[in-house]
C-alpha cells in the first residue's frame, strides 16, 4: 500500500520536472524568500525509524543574490520499526506472547541554514544548502505511559534545483542529509525493561524472536529527505 502511494508521488515529481520553465524569479540582495516543501524522509536503518513524511519551512535572507541565510524548521511524521523493540508479555504462568512494538513518532527539526545559488540568474537554478540545529523526537504518550521526547544536535547538508515560475514563485526539488547526533535508539523503545526480550543485562529471553541481521545502534545517523517545494518572494507579484 505504501509502495503504491510513493509511486504516485514519484509520478507527480516526474510530471513537475518535465514542465518547462515559465518565468525567471530573480532574487536581489536584501530579499527574503519563503520555501515550503515536503516529501519522504528516509531514516537510516540503524535509527529504527521507518520512512516518514516531512514538511519543511525555510526563510532565507539574501545577503547577495547568490547567498542567503535564515531559519529553518521541519516536521516529520513517522513510526518506529517494531523489529528493534521486542516485547514479551506473560499471560498467566503458562503462556507468553511476543510482540514487535513500534510507535508513531513526530519529529521537529529546527535551526539555521545557508544557501548558495549556483546560477541565480538562470531560470533553472541549482543550489547548495547546509545548516545546523537540533531535533526533537516526540514519542507516543499512549505507548510510553507518559509524554516523552528525546532530542539532539542535527546537521544538514544537501542541494537542489529550483525552477522559476514567476518573479515571485518557484518550485524546487531538494535532497538533504539530515545528520542526527547524540542519537540513542533505546530512547525509542516503548517496552518496559521488565518486558523486553533483550534484558538490560544483555541476555535475550527468546533469541528466536530477535532479528540477527539488524544493524547495531549508532549515536550518529544519516537520514535523507527528498522533497519538493514551493518558494515565494514576498513583495513580488
Amino acid at each position, binding site marked *: *500500500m*505504501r509502495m503504491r*502511494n*510513493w509511486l*504516485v*508521488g*514519484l509520478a*507527480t*515529481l516526474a*510530471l*513537475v520536472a518535465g*514542465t518547462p520553465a515559465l518565468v525567471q524569479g530573480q532574487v536581489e540582495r536584501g530579499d527574503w524568500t519563503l520555501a515550503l*516543501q*515536503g*516529501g*519522504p524522509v528516509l531514516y537510516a536503518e540503524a535509527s529504527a525509524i*521507518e*520512512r*516518514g*513524511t*516531512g*514538511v519543511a519551512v525555510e526563510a532565507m535572507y539574501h545577503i547577495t543574490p547568490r547567498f542567503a541565510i535564515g531559519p529553518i524548521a521541519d516536521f516529520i*511524521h*513517522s*513510526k*518506529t520499526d*517494531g523489529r528493534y523493540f*521486542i516485547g*514479551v508479555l*506473560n*499471560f498467566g*504462568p*503458562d*503462556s*507468553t*506472547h*511476543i*510482540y*514487535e*512494538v*513500534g*510507535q*508513531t513518532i513526530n519529529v521537529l527539526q529546527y535551526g539555521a541554514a545557508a544557501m548558495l545559488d549556483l546560477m541565480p540568474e538562470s531560470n533553472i537554478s541549482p543550489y547548495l544548502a547546509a545548516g545546523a540545529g537540533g531535533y526533537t523526537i516526540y514519542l507516543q504518550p499512549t*505507548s510510553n505511559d507518559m509524554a516523552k521526547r528525546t532530542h539532539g544536535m542535527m546537521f544538514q547538508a544537501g542541494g537542489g534545483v529550483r525552477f522559476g*515560475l*514567476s518573479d515571485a*514563485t518557484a*518550485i524546487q526539488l531538494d535532497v538533504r542529509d539530515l545528520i542526527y547526533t547524540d542519537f540513542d535508539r533505546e530512547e525509542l523503545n516503548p517496552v518496559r525493561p521488565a518486558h523486553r526480550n533483550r534484558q538490560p543485562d544483555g*541476555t535475550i*529471553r*527468546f*533469541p*528466536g*524472536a530477535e532479528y540477527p541481521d539488524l544493524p547495531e545502534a549508532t549515536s550518529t545517523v544519516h537520514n535523507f529527505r527528498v522533497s*519538493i*517545494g*514551493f518558494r515565494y518572494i514576498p513583495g513580488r507579484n
Partner: protein
Amino acid sequence: MPFQRHHGLRALLAAAFAPVALGLAACEQDAVTDVTGEKPVLNILLAPGAAVLPGGTSALSGTRISNFDTSVPDAFARATDPLETYVSQTTGAGTGTGFDLRTGVRNSSQDPRLPALVESEAVVGDWFGLFNPAWAGAGVGLWDLFGEIRGLKPEAVYTVVLARMALDVRGDLDQHARLTGSPIEQPDSLYFVGGEPYTPGSAVTCNFSAAVGVNTSRNPVVLGVFETNAAGTGIVDCVPGATGDSPWWRSTASQTPPGAADSLPFGVNQPGATLRPGQYNYVLIYEGAYVPGSNQLPSQNPVVRIQVGPDIDANGNVINNGFAPWPATITDLSNFRNLPGGANAFAVPGTITLNLTGLPTLGSKQYAVWLHNRQSNAYALARVKVDGGAPVTSFDSPGDDATVQVVIDDESGLDFGQYNDIVVTLENGAPGSAPSDARFLYREYLAANQSLTQGAFTFGRFDPANGNRPYVIGGSGNASFFRDSMLVNLQRITPPPPGFHYASYLVRRVGDNVTASQRVHAVTLDEIGNATDRIAESEVGSFANYGLYLLVLEPDGLTIRTNAIVQESENYVDKFGENFFPRSN
C-alpha cells in the same frame, strides 16, 4: 495570465504535497505486531528433582592405637609388683591366698603365638591360682595350683605343665601389637629354656593327692593330669613342691612370702628382672595324659596357655613390655594417653567400612579410594575390598541405585594413623600415584583433635588447600516453547562437583518407568550459575515424544543418564495437552 497562473499553482502544490498526505496516512497503520499470534509461547517451570546423588556412610571398627611409644620399657603400665597379684581368693575349697591367675587363661583364639594352641573354647572358671603352702597345708614348700577350667572337651584327660619359656620375638613384639590393636602378622614363638623335661615316674592326678617336685633343672615339669566332666569342665588341683635348689618360698608359717625376686615361683613381672631357672612363667594344659617316666609332653601344642610370669629372652632376662598375663585385648582405649608410652598416641580404626550409594556405572572409568593427610596434603591409594572381593585399587559400581560396600582394612597397605580423610575419586583408568582432580566424595575419620569420626560422606569438591565445597542442589529454571524450539533458562544452578558436568535430557516417564529418553546437550553454567539450553525440535524428533526436561549430573567424559536429577520440569505434554503436543502413540 494571473488566473491561469493561480490555477496551475494550486495544481502544482496539490501534486507536490500528495506524497506527504499519503505518507501520513501510511504512518497510521498499527505499530504493534503479535509475533506469536495464535500459538503463544508455552511456559513450564523447573524444580529440583528427586536426585540420587553420590553419597554413603563410613563405619569404623577394630579401633587401634597409633603412634604409641613402645620404646618405653613398661609402655603400657602392665608391670606388677612382686606380690601385686598375691591376693585372697575364693576357691571351690574355701578362701585362700595365692597368686591370682584367672586373668591369664588363654585359648587358641586369644593367644596366637607359637606353638599354636589347639583350637578350643577353654576359659577360666570361678577361680584359678597358685596358693601358698600355709593355706595348702600339705607341707613345707608344697603349693597348690588350684583352679577351674571350662570349655574343654567333655570327659577328656588333660596334662598340666609348669614351663620356663623364652620368647623368640619375630618382627615387632606381639604384645605391642595386641595392646595397640594392630594385627599380628608374624607371631612370636615360645620355647622351653633351661632344664630338662620332667614327668613323674607314676601317674599323678591333679586332685590334691600327690606332689610333684620342681627345681632348677626341671623344665617343663608335668604336674599331673585331670579329667573333665560331661560339660567339659575340669578342676585342676596340682601340688608343685619346691625341692632341692628350687628358689620357691616354702614356709608354711606365714601366708605372705617376703616378695624377694628369687623366692617367687613366677619371678618378678617388671622390667629389668630376671626369671631364674626353677622359676616358671607359663602354665600349660595339654590334651591327653603324659606317659609316666617318659619325660615327654603329650603333645607339641597345648590347649590352654596361662602366662604367669614375664616373657624372657634366652638368658632369662625380662623382655620389656612382655609382662604377664598375655593381653587378650587392646589396652583401655579411654585411658591409653595416660600410659607411659601413650603421650602422643591416638586411636585409629582397624577397619573402615564404606557403604557407598548413588555411584553411577562408569564403564570406561574407575572409582578409587584414597586416604588423605591433612597436614601434608598427601594422598595414598588404598587397596579396598569391594562387596567382599579381593583387595583392588579401583572399582566400578553396578549402578547408582545400588549400594557398594567398600572395606579398607589391614590389607589396604596403609597406616590409618598417617591420614585423616577418605576420598573417593573418578579415575580415567588405573589410578596413578596421585588422585585425579575429580575428588568428589569425602569423609573425615581422624579429626584434628585426633578423635575418630564416622558417618555420612559429603558429595562435593574435596580440596582442603582451597576449601572443600559441598555440593547442594540449588537454583531454579523455566522453559518455553517458542516456534520450533524449547528454550530453557537455568538460574543460579550450583556448579557441578569436580568430575561431573551437567547434561540435559528429554524423557517420557510412565509411572516410574522411563519409556523414552534423549540426551540433548551438555550444559555449561556461567560464573553465576546461569545457563540457557536451547533445544531445536529437529534435534529430538518431536517434543511430543517426551514430556519432561531433566538436568542431570553426568560423570565427565561419559554420556549416561544418571539419577542425579538436579532439575526437572513439569510434564509439558500433560500440562498443555495434545493439541500442542500431538502424540502418535
